[in-house]
């Protein structure tokens, strides 16, 4: 648990931000998304942060190639980053577990600090969560909302990537409400539709108890 948050750069924007933001990145352009994420992660190298990337749409090798394009010596820095398929990392017993995922985030940050990193940042491609039937909307919403709480004590700057082409737009709107920050046209903006986790969780509980959408 850190008390003072570092001011970090996100790489894709020149502004400085506190570490530990929970950011939603809604995209419909893969190339733009790759560039943005590559800059985000490259900046992590520069910030002496350990990196976690949970892939679903992009093969791990492609992420490494992107690192190389950016001039990152992937071989040398192999220990500085972890790239894994999202469903492997987040789905024990092949099914998404919000608790498991949240523990993973907290532990990753703690370990990074212990390893001497200044901090950690992570990015996840979330399409696996709903498209492969590994989770439900409420469950996912539950995770996203609770992540905000976790990140207060374990400021792992997180970017959740949602392909608008693969997710329902209404769901996108709900997802917006659980992410305090949002990347819009390459800029980080505060999400005005953000709902505090406690409030959102209450509302979401009702849904979780109801039929799946």
């Amino acid at each position: 648990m850190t008390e003072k948050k570092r001011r970090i750069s996100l790489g894709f924007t020149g502004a400085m931000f506190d570490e530990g933001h929970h950011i939603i990145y809604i995209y419909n352009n893969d190339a733009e998304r790759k560039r943005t994420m590559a800059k985000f992660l490259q900046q992590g190298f520069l910030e002496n942060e350990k990196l976690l990337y949970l892939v679903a749409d992009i093969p791990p090798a492609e992420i490494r190639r992107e690192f190389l394009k950016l001039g990152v010596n992937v071989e040398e820095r192999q220990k500085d980053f972890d790239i894994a398929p999202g469903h492997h990392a987040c789905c024990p017993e092949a099914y998404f577990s919000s608790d498991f995922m949240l523990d993973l985030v907290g532990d990753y940050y703690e370990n990074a600090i212990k390893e001497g990193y200044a901090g950690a940042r992570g990015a996840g491609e979330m399409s696996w969560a709903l498209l492969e039937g590994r989770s439900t909307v409420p469950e996912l919403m539950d995770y996203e909302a609770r992540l905000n709480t976790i990140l207060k004590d374990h400021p792992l700057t997180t970017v959740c990537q949602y392909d608008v082409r693969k997710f329902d737009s209404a769901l996108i709107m709900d997802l917006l409400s659980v992410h305090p920050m949002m990347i819009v046209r390459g800029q980080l903006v505060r999400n005005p539709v953000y709902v505090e986790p406690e409030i959102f969780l209450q509302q979401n509980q009702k849904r979780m108890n109801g039929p799946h959408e």
Partner: protein
Amino acid sequence: MSDPDARILGKILLLQSTLHLMQDNPGMARFVCRGLAPVPGLKVTGIFVGGHLYQEDEGKWLELKDCRRLMDCFKEGFINKNQRENYLAEFSKCHQMDCLTIESALDLYGFLFFQTTCSETFNSYRPYIENTLNLVALIIENNIQKALLHQNQENLEQAIEARSRELKQSEERYRSLFESLRDAILVVDPDKTIISCNPAFSDLFGYSADEIQGLKTKVLYADERQGAALGERLEKETDKGNFFHTLQYRKKSGACFPGETNFFSFRDTKGEKVGIIGIIRDITQRRQSEDALRRSEQRFRDLFNSISDLIFTQDLEGRLTSINPAVKKLFGYTEEELLGRRVTDFLDPQYQADFDSEYLAGVWQNGHCKGVSSFFRKDGSRIFIEYQSKLVTPENDAPFISGIGRDVTEQNLAAKEKKRLEAQLRQAQKMESIGTLTGGIAHDFNNMLSIILGNTELAQEKIPEGSPAREYLDEVQTASIRARDVVRQLLAFSRKTPEVRTPINLVPLVKESLKLLRSTIAANITISQAIDEKPAVLEADPTQIHQVLINLCSNAADAMSDNGGTLKVSLESLDLNKETAGFDPDLSAGRFIKITIRDTGEGIAPENLNRIFDPYFTTKPVDKGTGLGLSVAHGIVKSHGGSLQVRSQPGHGSVFEIYFPAAVQLPEAEQSPPSGELPRAAGRILFIDDDPSLAKLNQQRLERLGYTTSSHTDPEKALEIFRAAPHQYDLVITDMTMPHITGDQLCREILKIRADMAIILCTGYNEKISRTSASDLGIARYMEKPISMRELAETVHKVLINASKKNPLIGT
């Protein structure tokens, strides 16, 4: 109106910010509905966009058809804003909901349906909501544009792909062509560096594609200077278009060959020249073939030009299109004067009418035509050409006439001359026949005349002068003598005797010639004569003089053949002194006989006067005259020492004047006119004549003259009698033509028996004997019947006198 909540506005802004991510309309519709949900005073019921209706609540607020109908009404348009608002109000009332349009400046895309829970609050957010809906419209439009662009892009990509395939196929085809062409192809850049070549080039030059690439073109030229000169020209020439050039190339092996090259530039898409392509063809074999063909053509041309026969071609109108030198030489025209002209321009007018109907038609219909025609050369002289023409129909060209010809002028003239000579021969043969006939007739005729004349003379002795009977007998005698002369004339004209010039009197000869001429010339020609009866004697061959007269008179008659006229012949004797004989340098002064032959014919052109005596000169058609008549006449006159002159004027007839030198000696027949008593003498005469009448007559006449005469009609018996007593006779008189033994044979036998026997041979006509041959035989005298009493008396007297001088016993 209350101020809108910043948080709500922020949400609206976030909604607006993320709208661009919603590319599909249904997703966007839901996103908008969810995004506008927290706006106070606004209950979104649904949204119709892109033909899809999304309703937020479970409740069924609207039917899709209602939305489409609403859309159709808006698409049709309203007259004005009021009408539009009235319609929306009507809709709201009907469906108990409001709607806002989702439209841009270009089009209407949908409606937002909602209920207003608090109009005042709603109105404070209305601009932001409308702005959001406009943004939706923009995004939809943008999506449409993108879709269209994508579609167009897809179409474009498909077109590009198709075109690329075509291009690739085309490139493959051209590559295949490039590789497979038999001609060598070379590609060079503007610096003359070789870029590429095809396999045919490698085969021809021996360089592989790798070897040649990057080399300069000069390595290919056999002559560097030639190559350099070419290089300078190539830029300019290929800018104009294709440039063909032949030059010597060098292979890798060093061997050289002539190459015909087609150079052309190739350019990029901007039209900039990027290089030059050369297509090279080895023309060694072609050159050899061309040389061989050229040599062959030259041989044929030499042959064509050297052939002496005529070779020509004509078009189907008969115009000359080509000729060999022999044609030019023969006609005397240049090639330019001949080519393009119709053959009829040179053709004898008598053949012109048949040229189209017979020659051209014959060639066209039968494929060939041959014949002989006469033409005129440039100098006006006539030539005869034997021709053979053939129609030629080449496969890819117009038909034409091809022909050969040969100058047969000499043969033609020779043929005509032959005809003329044949005609002359026939005439001569006819004359000979006449002569033979005349000879046959003359013998009998003379015998009969002898009887008539002899008995008339005997009767005259019996009848005193003054007696009427004597007068009758005198007439009989005159007529008999005239008849005798006529027979002699006939024999003279028909006899083929060698030239023997003797004094002849031209008077009867001219008269007799005119008599003969009368029957041979046209009846519309009148013959008049003015002949001086005084003897006009000259030493001449009567046959030749006759020839001269006939030739000149025939010529005069020909000049009057068309329209008739008068032929006047005059004969006179005159003296010419040195001055008056000066018209002919060959004449000397002296006595001359002048024969004038005048006609009223067409006359002779002045330019021909000097040539009329030239051999073969004639103005008559070939079959009408050979041009020899006047020449022969002139020659005969000159050979007799005379002169032949002519005066003529076109349209006024001609005058020919013959001058013969007069002879001093009178003709033998008229040397001494008969007068006085008949000479008589004694002697014994043996008379032989197979004609009993003549034998009897002459016996009487000889006895009248005092001779003892023994006459016989059988020469063989007479010979026996003589043989029995050869010295019993002083003189033998025998006829020539007798049966069993002719007179000359009898004479030989007699002379064998008695060599000094005096013999007189008499003949009516016998071509075997003449005065000369009789003398050679040893015969004392030769006499032609009929023999008058006086002739008989004088001849017998002379012979006996001569014989007695040799043998004094004769006459005793």
